[in-house]
């Protein structure tokens, strides 16, 4: 332990002071909230500017008192209505566009008569799209909201005319549906679509994504840290120190893990700030806001299971990274090997993140269950909505066995004789025989 501490200190200091590492750690915590802020400001501003002067062209083919009243209703609901008197639809659209209107509303002939006779009236709305920015989306929602509001007012008026004692709402929507969702044993007063938005974002995407980032960062960090030792020829010196190769391995595992966990914390914070910013966007507040508190946290035992499977996954990917780095004579070679090894390891992670595990073909399921990195993701995805999946419990001893096998193989690899000989052979394969012979002295 006394020998391990200075080795871990070396790892952490060397990693945290490396610009390639600390920039990678700091960027998400700065960039993600910044992106969210910029998007929020940009959308808010464009929407505010547009809705302040939201013009809608009206082609009134009816020209009755009723259609006139309808125009007044629209104006009262915040729209600036421009009347257009032209012969054709094409000309009306051209006129609307030239007046800066965002939509053209066509009121048909017999609008008033049909309404008064309690017949449904078809009103045509042409949205004039000048921009495909996210901000524009809100404009058309505002037009829609005004039309729906006017339709409701007309309905109230007609029902009142039919019978002043009738409750308009009861007639319009006789069923008053109170939508709630049951998650495990908890009743949450929110419709399932809102819950799905929350759960999908929180458990199915956010947590697996953080675990994925953690896993890739760890493999990268451990591989780079070890490859740099080879590149700078410091590993050779390190292996002659009076420390066991297990201490060297443990120091690399702990050092890389500490830095990667710090990275994951910063990324999570950045991500949460990003989503917090997203939730405050116009129109988004009601979708997810407040539901974080509504969901009951998963039971403590699932957290314990998650911690164990996460620790095993961390040890697995870190020792994999160390093995890759140890076999690489430099960082460039390590990066090439990382791509070859980590992509097949990470593909199952995406399957877990975006797929429904039980509906996947058996071969893909087996691929997922073969890797310790999948278990914390499966667990994180399932723990909020159901009991802990049985396969994740069986996955613990399996992951432990596989991880310790990788750890053992990595520690064997750190035996200088094997390492130097393997590096020599790899160098030969890369056609650097002259260099290797010189290195052998």
């Amino acid at each position, binding site marked *: 332990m006394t020998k391990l501490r200075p080795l871990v200190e070396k790892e952490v200091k060397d990693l945290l002071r490396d610009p390639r590492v600390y920039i990678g750690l700091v960027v998400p915590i700065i960039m993600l909230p910044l992106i969210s802020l910029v998007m929020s400001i940009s959308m808010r501003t464009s929407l505010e500017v547009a809705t302040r002067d939201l013009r809608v062209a009206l082609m009134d083919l009816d020209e009755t008192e009723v259609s006139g009243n309808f125009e007044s209703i629209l104006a009262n609901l915040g729209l600036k209505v421009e009347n257009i008197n032209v012969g054709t639809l094409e000309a009306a659209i051209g006129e609307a566009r030239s007046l800066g209107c965002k939509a053209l509303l066509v009121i048909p002939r017999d609008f008033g008569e049909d309404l008064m006779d309690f017949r449904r009236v078809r009103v045509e709305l042409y949205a004039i799209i000048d921009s495909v920015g996210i901000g524009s989306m809100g404009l058309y929602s505002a037009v829609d909201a005004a039309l729906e509001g006017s339709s409701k007012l007309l309905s109230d008026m007609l029902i009142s005319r039919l019978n002043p004692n009738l409750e308009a709402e009861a007639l319009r929507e006789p069923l008053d549906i109170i939508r709630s969702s049951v998650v495990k044993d908890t009743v949450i007063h929110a419709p399932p679509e809102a819950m799905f938005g929350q759960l999908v974002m929180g458990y199915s995407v956010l947590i697996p994504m953080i675990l994925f980032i953690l896993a890739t960062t760890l493999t990268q960090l451990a591989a780079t840290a070890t490859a740099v030792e080879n590149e700078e*020829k410091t590993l050779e010196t390190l292996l002659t120190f*009076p420390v066991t190769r297990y201490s060297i391995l443990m120091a690399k595992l702990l050092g890389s893990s500490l830095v990667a966990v710090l990275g994951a914390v910063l990324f999570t914070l950045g991500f949460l700030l990003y989503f917090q910013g997203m939730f405050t966007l116009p129109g988004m507040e009601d979708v997810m806001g407040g539901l974080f508190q509504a969901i009951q946290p998963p039971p403590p035992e699932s957290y314990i299971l998650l911690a164990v499977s996460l620790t095993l996954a961390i040890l697995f990917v870190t020792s994999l990274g160390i093995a890759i780095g140890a076999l690489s004579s430099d960082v460039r070679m390590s990066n090439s090997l990382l791509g070859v090894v980590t992509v097949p390891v990470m593909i199952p992670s995406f399957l877990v993140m975006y797929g429904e595990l039980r509906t996947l073909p058996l071969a893909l399921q087996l691929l997922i269950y073969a890797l310790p990195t999948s278990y914390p993701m499966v667990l994180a995805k399932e723990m909020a909505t159901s009991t802990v999946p049985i396969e994740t419990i069986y996955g613990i001893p399996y992951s432990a066995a596989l991880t310790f096998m990788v750890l053992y193989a990595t520690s064997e690899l750190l035996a200088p004789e094997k390492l130097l000989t393997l590096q020599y052979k790899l160098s030969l394969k890369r056609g650097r025989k002259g260099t290797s012979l010189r290195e052998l*002295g």
Partner: protein
Amino acid sequence: MLATEVVEARDLVKRFGELVALGGISFEVKKGEVFGLIGPNGAGKTTALRILATLLLPSAGYVRILGFDVLRDADKIRPVISYLAEDAGTYRNLSGYEYLSIVARIYFNSRTESERATEEAVRISGLGDRIMDKMKTYSKGMKRRVQIARVFMSKPKLAILDEPTSGLDVFHARHVREVIKDYVKEGGTAIISSHNMLEVEHLCSRVAFIHRGRVLDQDEPQAIKERYGVQNLEEAFVEVVGK
């Protein structure tokens, strides 16, 4: 093995697949000696030193350091040796002081001892205040000084130095040679490799000519020069290899 022998290498063979890096070399290094392995690039010097440093295992033959076999007793050998690789690098993001302090804490269990060793290493490096700067700002010579300080801070019974002055300017090379001499004066033993034969002639008490994995001759520099009737070791080496 005699009590004065720090290193005893017998019929040492090292193969890498089909490549024979060492073809059965034998030599001894006595206490208080600076023993030089001299030869061109690819002669087998680094392979021999890596075996002594417990980094490589011999394919045949044996090496004993202070009576311990490198094959079986590597754990007992590592605390009493110190190895300087030819192109030993440094941790770019650590200061020289931090690096030396970390190594001291690996070699010494007590805080007092490790602090004393660190201060001694700082003195040996001769880098003054620059020792607190990150090593990525160091020149090659400064990095080598830190490594030399690291080697001798633990007061090893055997220092294994692979091309200790290779690529250094005259001032840094001189500094390194002085440190080695001081260490030997205090009772240390060193084995160095070099292809700079003139330097070795002044530094080593005994030398071995190594070429294509074989020791061609070994003795005191003066005795070798007299044997071949030449002015310096470089001429003697050419004579030996040419024979």
